[in-house]
């Protein structure tokens, strides 16, 4: 029988620009913060999972151990696109559930401030100046800009536009209003990279990146880290009443990739694997979408948030526009989404994101979210997706203790 899984301690750094601090400094703040939050110490950890996408070969986990404690435990350095943080958490979760360790640490860290546009390969100068077939597709030139777009704002713009094609009701203004909501939410989150409220006009008239996504409708590249300490249920029972009260139950921890489909192998499909992850997570947790008190989902672009309402089954199939128009996904609505401000304003230091969104949900479940607290929150869901693709979904529940 597999063990119950709990978050004992969790911490995120302020997201934003940290020019004076390197990856290890940021990861150490998150890791020490999570240990202190859980009332435990490094020597108790049985395993560390460390995520950092941009420095995936740097052994960030070992570097972090040199800073906070070299106890000889196994380190798993993970990289899994924008699902890297959720993957680190999932590795720690598997170690606990297998019964191999009692405590495990997951940490995600990224330095991305000023990184600019992600995803496009650009057009490097080649050694010769003749057309030559190269690579997997035998292309004579890079495809970005010649056969569609590879940059993230454009890829995710198309994903939102396709939803509109299938179900109707979308417009530039609708997507901009989703961004307006999240930026409004961010004003209550002191850890967000940007806490600026934008009017709809400001959003729609800002710099266009890839129609319909203007700059404030895109996730903010920034620096940040987040870490969590996981513990099994039988160990938790031996801890203090305060630790048990603040522990947050992980009732589902799911990671999916694309299933085989008779479809294009080049174009990304963010929908199928997200829906599959959600179905599995609801099954594991024994709840349905209607039981959720808040959701942190992967709004890497305003156009993405809309499709994930549907993929996570927060609405009837095809009903994402109606759900948003009803006001349900605002923080005073029945299904608040991205009360942290989301990736558009809280920021998206890639590997930190999949733990930071769990931190946000856990903080509400503990009743410690301050001005932006969703009152009486008992159950929440955190979702990330990385292209390639990988999707992580975690469902969290407040402790009954």
């Amino acid at each position, binding site marked *: 029988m597999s063990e119950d899984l709990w978050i004992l301690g969790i911490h995120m750094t302020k997201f934003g620009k940290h020019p004076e601090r390197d990856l290890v400094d940021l990861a150490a703040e998150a890791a020490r913060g999570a240990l202190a939050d859980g009332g435990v110490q490094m020597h108790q950890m049985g395993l560390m999972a460390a995520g950092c996408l941009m420095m995936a070969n740097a052994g960030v986990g070992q570097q972090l151990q040199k800073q906070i404690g070299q106890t000889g435990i196994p380190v798993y350095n993970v990289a899994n696109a924008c699902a890297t943080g959720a993957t680190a958490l999932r590795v720690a979760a598997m170690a606990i559930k297998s019964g191999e360790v009692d405590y495990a640490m997951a940490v995600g860290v990224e330095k991305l401030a000023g990184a600019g546009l992600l995803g496009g390969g650009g057009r490097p100068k080649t050694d010769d100046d003749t057309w030559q077939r190269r690579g997997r597709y035998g292309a004579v030139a890079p495809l970005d800009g010649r056969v569609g777009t590879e940059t993230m704002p454009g890829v995710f713009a*198309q994903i939102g536009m*396709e939803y509109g094609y299938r179900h109707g009701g979308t417009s530039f203004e609708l997507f901009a209003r989703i961004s307006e909501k999240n930026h409004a939410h961010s004003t209550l989150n002191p850890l967000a990279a940007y806490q600026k409220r934008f009017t709809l006009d400001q959003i729609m008239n800002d710099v266009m990146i890839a129609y319909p996504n203007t700059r404030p409708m895109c996730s903010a590249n920034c620096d940040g880290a987040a870490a969590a300490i996981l513990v099994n249920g039988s160990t938790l029972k031996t801890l203090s009443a305060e630790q048990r009260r603040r522990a947050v139950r992980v009732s589902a921890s799911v990671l999916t990739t694309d299933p085989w489909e008779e479809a294009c192998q080049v174009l990304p499909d963010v929908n199928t694997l997200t829906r599959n992850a959600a179905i599995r997570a609801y099954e594991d947790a024994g709840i349905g979408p209607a039981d959720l008190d808040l959701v942190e989902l992967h709004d890497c672009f305003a156009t993405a948030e809309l499709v994930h309402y549907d993929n996570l089954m927060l609405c009837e199939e095809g009903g994402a526009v109606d759900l948003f128009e009803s006001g349900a996904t605002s923080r005073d609505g029945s299904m608040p989404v991205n009360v942290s401000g989301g990736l558009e304003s809280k920021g998206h230091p890639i590997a930190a994101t999949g733990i930071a969104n769990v931190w946000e949900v856990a903080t509400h479940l503990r009743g410690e979210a301050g001005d932006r607290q969703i009152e009486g929150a008992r159950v929440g869901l955190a979702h990330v997706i990385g292209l390639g693709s990988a999707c992580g979904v975690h469902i969290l529940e407040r402790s009954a203790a």
Partner: protein
Amino acid sequence: MRLPVEGVLKAFTIVSMAAPGIPVPFAAGVIDLGGTSAPGNVINTEPDPRHIQVGMKVRLATFSLGEDSAGTEAIGFGFEPVP
């Protein structure tokens, strides 16, 4: 697999910011070709949402990617609106 050369534009974006060397703005799209989705640029029309809408009929068209130093011309493909 043979695909029809005419299809429906089911998604598009107008890329205004891209990596260095890629001319902007350009319209990128996803085209439903008889049930198979394919990526491609929307060409031979203004890259502007007033001229491009999801659901519009488009067809395969070619355009020059330029000549190399040996005088060989590379031909690219995109999709143009069906009038």
